[in-house]
């Protein structure tokens, strides 16, 4: 099958733009169609993908700005295949949610921004040219800025300000570093990530470039000392937006480490390995502690995401062992799959209890057994119950880490335990206990089930077959992880074009 990545990439934006010109009622439907077409394309790609190859597939490589050496290169390999599928799935779910529960005002703009967001995220995942990647990475911010600023909670203006300043400070430094990378490596002839991965940069140049990229990614994730924007943004973002934001955008940052940092700055990656592991560890511990003291359900999930991203970073920087990075990649997909439905569930609980504070929720379980069961499944997956794909992911991450950094792995283990504490606390407070005074419990209706049930089914399916994702990503992950280790793994596996 010939798969044109440009179609997959721009379909959501194109249809959302058309939706902006269409009548009000049609706009969300156009958004949904755009997302579903991309989803269908992505699923097709999952089946068509040639497992076992570490090369880019379905490559689109066109001249774009020859004067700057910037090309329009898109490609898919084991690193981004599943993340693209995840993105299209979750944006489709959000689009469906918006169709069923459109916002009160300016629906067309809302739909347009969601389409723009999907295209930007997909672009960041598919871009194989450094400048193109930076362009999409920064572009992701624009729709979310407007979505929070126009449809967000009461503190929305302050929230957008923090969100944009934090993330753009990181991304702008990354922009300078990206330009410098191309110019230092080959005089600005080419910014192709594949070509830059040769490792022609001196170690000192690699170091500051690494710092600039790592800072951008750590802020976007967010990781522990750089998470200042997160609480306000999470508190004020509309929930269907937050679902994709939390599930997908943080993954772009983690993916950036695998796609760009490890292959292009292998020496610096080695140098900074310990520092990165410590930041990841600090994220896990700090965020877990926050997650079981917060009472706002959004923030509990926000901090749990920070902790999860900490695990993912640990896996990536385990280096040496492909298991760690493979676990990280699997965990990226897993976390995306669980966190999006959790935010939809919060929206439904908020509807029943009138609050997003878990102290004021309670007792929903008695009258809403289906909703509560779905919540339970997702919560158990989130805390990495054995049998879930999240368990497999965390297991691989820790396995990779045990072989390289034993002490850090042991401390990270406590993070797994902490996760069960905060997720169970949230679940019990939210749906069990006595029925509170303001709580109206009624069960999931078909409309909301349409969004939630498919997502939970995907989680279950993925729990049974995580091997699918592992198989198709194996070759690419090994190539990436081999770079900082001096290319030995490549030789062992005999991977050739």
């Amino acid at each position, binding site marked *: 099958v010939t798969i044109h990545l440009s179609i997959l990439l721009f379909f959501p934006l194109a249809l959302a733009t058309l939706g902006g010109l269409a009548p009000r009622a049609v706009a969300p439907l156009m958004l949904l169609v755009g997302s579903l077409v991309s989803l269908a394309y992505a699923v097709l790609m999952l089946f068509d993908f040639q497992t076992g190859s570490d090369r880019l597939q379905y490559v689109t490589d066109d001249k*774009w700005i020859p004067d700057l050496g910037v090309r329009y290169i898109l490609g898919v390999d084991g690193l981004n295949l599943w993340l693209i599928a995840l993105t299209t799935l979750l944006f489709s779910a959000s689009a469906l949610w918006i169709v069923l529960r459109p916002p009160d005002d300016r629906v067309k703009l809302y739909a347009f921004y969601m389409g723009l967001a999907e295209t930007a995220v997909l672009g960041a995942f598919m871009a194989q040219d450094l400048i193109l990647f930076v362009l999409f990475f920064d572009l992701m*911010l624009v729709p979310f800025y*407007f979505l929070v600023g126009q449809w967000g909670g009461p503190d*929305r203006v302050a929230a957008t300000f923090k969100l944009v*300043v934090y993330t753009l400070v990181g991304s702008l430094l990354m922009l300078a570093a990206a330009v410098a990378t191309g110019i230092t490596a080959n005089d600005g002839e080419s910014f192709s990530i594949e070509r830059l991965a040769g490792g022609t940069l001196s170690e000192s140049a690699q170091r500051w470039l690494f710092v600039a990229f790592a800072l951008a990614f750590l802020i976007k994730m967010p990781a522990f000392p750089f998470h200042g924007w997160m609480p306000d943004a999470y508190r004020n973002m509309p929930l269907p937006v937050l679902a994709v934001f939390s599930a997908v955008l943080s993954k772009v940052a983690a993916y950036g480490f695998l796609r760009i940092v490890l292959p292009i700055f292998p020496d610096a990656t080695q140098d900074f390995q310990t520092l990165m592991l410590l930041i990841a560890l600090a994220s896990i511990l700090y965020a877990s502690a926050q997650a079981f003291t917060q009472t706002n359900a959004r923030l509990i999930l926000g901090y749990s995401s920070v902790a999860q991203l900490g695990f993912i970073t640990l896996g990536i920087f385990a280096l040496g062992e492909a298991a760690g990075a493979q676990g990280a990649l699997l965990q990226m997909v897993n976390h995306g799959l669980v966190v999006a439905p959790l935010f939809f569930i919060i929206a439904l609980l908020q509807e029943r209890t009138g609050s997003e504070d878990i102290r004021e929720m309670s007792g929903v379980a008695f009258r809403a057994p289906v909703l509560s069961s779905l919540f339970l499944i997702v919560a158990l997956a989130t805390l990495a119950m054995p049998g879930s794909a999240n368990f497999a992911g965390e297991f691989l991450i820790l396995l990779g880490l045990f072989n390289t950094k034993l002490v850090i792995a042991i401390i990270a283990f406590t993070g797994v335990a902490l996760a069960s504490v905060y997720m169970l606390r949230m679940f019990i407070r939210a749906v069990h206990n006595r029925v509170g005074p303001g709580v109206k419990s009624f069960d999931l209706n078909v409309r909301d089930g349409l969004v939630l049930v498919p997502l939970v089914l995907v989680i279950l399916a993925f729990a049974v077959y995580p091997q699918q994702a592992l198989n198709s990503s194996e070759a690419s992950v090994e190539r990436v992880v081999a770079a900082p280790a001096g290319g030995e793994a490549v030789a062992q596996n005999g991977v050739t074009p």
Partner: protein
Amino acid sequence: VSAVLFAADVKGPAIDWMAISPLVALVGGACLVLMAGLVRAPFVRHTVVPLLALAALGTAAGLSIATWGDNVSVISGAMRMDDLTLFLTLVFVAAAAGAVLLSWRAIAPREAGHGEYYTLLLTVVLGMIVLAGATNLVTVFIGYELLSIPLYVLCATEMRRERSLESGLKYLIIGSVGSATLLYGLAFVYGATGETSFTGVAAGVEDMSGDVLLLTGLAFVVAGLAFKASVAPFHQWTPDVYEGAPTPITAFMAVATKAAALGVIIRFFDVAVIGASTTWAPALATLAAITIVVGNVGAIGQSSLKRLLAYSGVAQAGYMLAGVVVTTQLGVRAVVFYLAIYLLMNMAAFAVVVARERETGLGDDISSLYGLGADRPLLAWPMTIAMLSLAGFPATAGFFGKVYLIGAAVNNGYTWLGVGIVIGSAISLAYYLRVVSAVWMRAPDERAAGVVPAGPPRPAIAGGSTEADSDPDAVAASARVAAGGGRRLIQPEVIGLGVVCAAASVFFGVYPSPLLDLAQDAGAALTNLF
């Protein structure tokens, strides 16, 4: 080309009329506009005069395109009409055309008698071209004055408004200091090298980079040109003058004056005194860094949009100066590319400012933008795109402008300046996004109680044009301004300008190649650089 060959056996300067045809078109146009302005019929004054001005500008642009690639030296080496000059000419002409459109229904031309207003505008453009093309110290000064003097007058054309007069006077005084400094510096350079032509100066500079006379001269020249380009610490006049001048003139100054000053800075430093680059490059780099910081920090907290854009322009001048410092063709290309997109973003922003000034009576206060996003997409989007582009967001032209400048800086060992541009852009988010959030995230009723609609324009000097008093439009406008309500006016040329410039910003943000190709030619015109 033929003119150069003939020059050997003909006495007196041979004039290559084709090469200087854009200048001729502007001179002719200026005379025609002035004459037409004398006709009493309102139709001629209100419609024919600006149309004639547009026609003159269009002709100049067309002739620039026709002579593209000729790269000739004209009038005995007084100036070069090469692709760099022509590129900048197109920028000046476009900015002036934008100013004509913004002035169409403005008070300023009415008070200044239409003909004079547009004639002065065309003369400024003429001066700018002379300045940008100058390859002789004397031509530099002629161009500088030809551009400055009409601008002083234009700033004061709203003669019933105190601030406009104040702005003109301020500009006159500070501008004259700048001129004097420049002239002084040019004299020193001449004294040190014994030559006025840039080639002669370049040859003289080769073996005297430590010469005190030359260094003094260079310092004065830097200061004189820095006044015009609003490079810190010579930028203090900028916010005051920009705020007081009629908004269409502010829009024109913000873009074209900066482009002209940077044009002459490029040619003077990267051609005439390139031999002494080890002495001036660090100084200019420092100035660029200071300018970036001062401009960006100064813009934070401004509630007047014109002041905000003035400070933003200071910061942008700093970014562009970085492209001059690196002394490469890549740097020149990056600067002229940035100038072209700077034109688009600023024109889009000023078009919205003009439109809202007329509609709300809040002047250029940021609160005049509140609630635009809800019901005025044709004003909200251009403003938004302009701000995002100025901040360097991707998918707008500003993104590639920054990429290009950073690339040029890094390429020649000025990585720290590249990082400086980035840090400046990060600071700039604080104020650009404030404007965007005013457009989309505020409701009109959120206006602070302190902002009261300005009253009707007060007569500042006796004996001004009587036309404004008798004009029913103006009276109606005053009444509306006094009421402070925001009413939709019919001003398609203003809105259209904003929309077109914003659309172009997005287009070049996605596909910058056509503009980059032109910039490439402009950079290649400086053959002494690599």
